[in-house]
């Protein structure tokens, strides 16, 4: 049983902050290191990947990982391609897709959300109807349908993922704009003769950056998983581009014989997403604790 004393009541606020800070640091640090490593490997990877990711070595098929110093550190796949090199190249696609999806959907979502919240009326109604229609699709299903229409491809994949991911930005930004609109600094700007466009870009949007950053980290995590899922189902990037999702799809038949085929690409997805989520958690606690209630962010 916990005793309720005067000291514990007084200590509480200071104690809470004291307890929060180290935890925040550990989260931010771990997440930051993982994300930084992900970005660096994604950008610089091709220069230190030991092999060509698509080079088939038919004499070295399905080689198990043999440790440091061997020709294939993480083994080879069913066509004798080096797993380590493929995993490194795969990070490029994930990195590219994740950043592209986050920025494009962020741009669309923030713009539409700000317009919707600022102007209200008919514009708001139309944008919110669009949100309702797109949001009525179960996630992934819209992606699959769009990919079936557009066909496999990196650019198409980004498009298919953006199709639904601008919505969280739009919803949160609209809500915040609704309250920002009535604030004194907006009225002041209006009185000084600023136009609507100037008010939105100069006064409203800068106030939305922090929240959008938090939404963005979680959108990044979800788009990495979605990219891998679609590629795994065979409707993502074309098979000649090595990605973590296509590697997992190729590995399925060899589950019982070659454990290293599914292990490494999946581990990469998991660790990367974990790092982004850690960073997102830390960012959210720091910038916008109100978002906490949604659990995953988005």
């Amino acid at each position, binding site marked *: 049983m916990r005793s*309720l004393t005067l000291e514990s009541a007084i200590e509480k606020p200071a104690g809470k902050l004291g307890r929060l800070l180290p935890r925040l640091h550990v989260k931010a640090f771990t997440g930051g290191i993982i994300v930084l490593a992900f970005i660096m490997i994604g950008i610089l990877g091709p220069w230190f990947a030991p092999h060509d990711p698509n080079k088939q070595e038919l004499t070295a098929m399905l080689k198990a990982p043999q440790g440091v110093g061997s020709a294939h550190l993480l083994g080879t796949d069913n066509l004798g391609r080096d797993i380590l090199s493929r995993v490194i190249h795969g990070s490029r696609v994930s990195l590219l897709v994740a950043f592209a999806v986050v920025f494009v959907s962020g741009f669309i979502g923030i713009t539409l959300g700000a317009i919707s919240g600022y102007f209200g009326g008919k514009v708001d109604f139309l944008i919110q109807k669009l949100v309702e229609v797109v949001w009525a699709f*179960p996630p992934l299903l819209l992606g699959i*349908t769009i990919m079936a229409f557009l066909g496999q491809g990196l650019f198409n994949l980004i498009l298919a993922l953006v199709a639904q991911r601008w919505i969280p930005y739009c919803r949160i930004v609209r809500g915040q704009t609704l309250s920002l609109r009535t604030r004194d600094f907006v009225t002041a700007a209006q009185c000084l003769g600023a136009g609507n466009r100037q008010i939105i870009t100069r006064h409203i949007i800068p106030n939305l950056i922090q929240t959008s950053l938090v939404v963005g980290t979680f959108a990044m995590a979800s788009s990495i998983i979605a990219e891998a899922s679609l590629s795994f189902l065979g409707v993502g990037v074309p098979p000649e581009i090595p990605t973590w999702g296509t590697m997992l799809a190729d590995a399925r038949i060899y*589950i019982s014989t070659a454990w290293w085929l599914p*292990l490494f690409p999946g581990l990469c997805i*998991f660790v990367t997403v*974990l790092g982004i989520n850690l960073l997102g958690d830390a960012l959210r606690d720091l910038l916008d604790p109100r978002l906490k*209630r949604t*659990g995953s962010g988005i």
Partner: protein
Amino acid sequence: MTGYFVQRLAGTLPVLLLISLLVFFLIHAAPGDPTLLLLGEETNAADVARAKERWGLDQPLHIQYLKFLQSVASGDFGKSFKYAEPVTRVIKTRLPATIELAIFAIIIATLLAIPLGVWAGARPNSWIDNLGTTFGLFGISMPSFWLAIMLILLLAGVLNVLPTSGRSTYGIAGPEQTGFYILDSILQKNWAAVGDAMTHILMPALALGVNMLGILMRVTRSSILEVMNEDYVRTARAKGLQENKVVWRHVSSNALIPVITVVGLELGTLLSGSIIVETVFAWPGSGSLLITALNARDYPLVTGLVMTYTMAFVAINLIIDGLYALVDPRIRY
């Protein structure tokens, strides 16, 4: 309140109509010809033309869409190209498998997540909290299909304790009544079949439920943390109630309201997750059917499935709103 729901229901109709339009045209405009995919590349032109005529593919797209709407209005989605049966019947045979899987995933997720979340939230920064928080973070970061593959690798491959695919071992289950294997077997008192179906559903349900588990755990924890600071909790403690009773009776009952919403919201993700998890486990549900239908460009079946999923998603959201009002008397529509 009834009025509110009638209004909401009416509001979803135009949304569903727009979605049907979108899906119909996206699927029909997608590259790939269903006649060639189903009859084979070397079929002669006359047969192709005959198939096209039979499936109504020779008519302009807008006429096809109007015909589709006509059949929807009479409670049907047309006839599947691949299975040569009404789409609703094909979906009906597959749907119980998906629902059964989803229910088990939810059961596993809630049974693990809520106690863990309550425990972690009631003792912030203890070892149990750290364990729970890490667990929750792992849960939301885990790609379900990778977990599925790793489970097969470990539990079926190395340890050889669970079957890798399908819903039951051939010949054990009795005749189908409801389509829900576990329910059917219980009704028939066929306990061997119940056990068999359980071993088959365990891995896919765990893989499907892992993200929900993580999210639920995190929401429960933060919700408990919030309620722990309320005045009535202090009152309960002040009157000398055991900490356990305070947590489970006074805190949890109030903290679990937001958790219901999250279960509802996550059901949509669960539906999409089932598409990919079913594919990994060769689970004969509607998710794996969608991928088969899509690859065969079976237009009516794809459209029917997407519409079924979407309607389920919209219906779930409506039900959750209703449940919310039921649990929290302050909410009135």
